[in-house]
């Protein structure tokens, strides 16, 4: 695996044009192809794709929900700015993730179509775009909203792009467990943008996403296992095996049931959220059971239970945070 640091120097910019780097020490060949290839600038749509817009939509949604659920008021202009900063930070971190993993992405079917492995953009542009977007998001958050929110945003970007992408992901099958914290920051940031301090409620929202991430991602990893194995990423199904992964999915789903309802238990939300959380988490658990006690039937196994759990896990998070917002709005209106 060739890391970006090894691709610096003449020809580095053009290296991604040829997809995954080969271990051939073919420096001369690379430089020659650099000079002969036409250096077209990347299209703006490729920069947009670099921000992982689909992931960003979930990040923006949970950040917005954290903001709405927080006690207090924020001016709409500042609220919009805070959400914009969260989106920019997520986009910057995603760009840095793709800059670092361009060679790995090229080896996986799910990610091979991204701008860097496709050669539609040079690696340096992706890195600079990621750093610029991340720095701008933190500065804007700090100046316009507050430095506590700005610092948490900076920590979340560092957590995703360095702690998860560079450090944990290639080293340990627990990468998703610890790295899941990166995706758990948005509601915390949204909450802090309104209140200016950290209390138990936003920490619980953080914990919910933290414990939701492993079963969500491992369900995906079960049916794209061969891809991860091919590029040497030690995802749980690759290292610990399918049986262990399936049991752990169930364990996290069991934990998620009381945890998701804990904001209700501590009096931070009303019954609308509490009942919705229990119902949604019970269904999550019910869908995890067939995944946990199932054996893959063979190569032609369509992995339907795993795909169903993955799809539901995305819906689960949207629905859970939508219930949080509904509960808060109904409470503010005096309906409950």
């Amino acid at each position, binding site marked *: 695996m060739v890391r970006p640091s090894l691709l610096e120097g003449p020809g580095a910019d053009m290296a991604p044009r040829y997809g995954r780097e080969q271990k051939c020490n073919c420096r001369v060949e690379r430089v020659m192809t650099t000079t002969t290839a*036409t*250096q*077209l*600038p*990347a*299209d*703006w749509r490729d920069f947009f794709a670099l921000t992982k817009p689909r992931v960003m939509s979930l990040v923006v949604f949970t950040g917005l929900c954290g903001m709405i659920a927080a006690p207090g*008021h*924020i*001016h709409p*202009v*500042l609220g919009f*700015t805070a959400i*914009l900063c969260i989106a920019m930070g997520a986009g910057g971190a995603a760009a840095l993730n793709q800059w670092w993993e361009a060679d790995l992405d090229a080896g996986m079917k799910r990610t091979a179509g991204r701008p860097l492995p496709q050669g539609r953009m040079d690696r340096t542009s992706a890195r600079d775009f990621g750093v610029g977007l991340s720095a701008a998001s933190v500065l804007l958050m700090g100046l*316009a909203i507050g430095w506590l929110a700005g610092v948490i945003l900076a920590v979340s970007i560092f957590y995703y792009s360095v702690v998860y992408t560079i450090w944990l992901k290639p080293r340990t099958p627990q990468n998703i467990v610890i790295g899941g914290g990166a995706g758990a920051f948005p509601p915390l940031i949204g909450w802090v943008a309104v209140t200016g301090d950290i209390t138990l409620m936003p920490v619980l929202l953080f914990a919910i996403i933290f414990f939701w991430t492993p079963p969500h991602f491992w369900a995906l990893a079960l049916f794209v296992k061969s891809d991860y194995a091919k590029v040497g990423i030690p995802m749980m199904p690759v290292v610990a095996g399918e049986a262990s992964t399936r049991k752990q999915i169930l364990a996290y789903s069991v934990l998620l049931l009381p945890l998701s309802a804990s904001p209700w238990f501590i009096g931070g939300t009303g019954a609308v959220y509490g009942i919705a959380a229990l119902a949604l988490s019970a269904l999550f658990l019910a869908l995890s059971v067939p995944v946990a006690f199932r054996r893959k039937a063979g190569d032609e196994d369509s992995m339907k239970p795993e795909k169903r759990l993955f799809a539901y896990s995305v819906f689960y998070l949207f629905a859970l945070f939508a219930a949080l917002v509904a509960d808060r709005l109904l409470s503010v209106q005096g309906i409950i």
Partner: protein
Amino acid sequence: MNMTPEEQAEFTRRRKGRNFVVAGLLLAFVVLFFFITIVRIGGAQ
């Protein structure tokens, strides 16, 4: 760098597209900073 006419046209199209997007973003940020300043000076939170 030698480019064919097709490559030159594509180069120009992409550069123009990027310039328009950057201009639009800069303009949007100017407007956003204006409103942030008004809100912050007004003491709203």
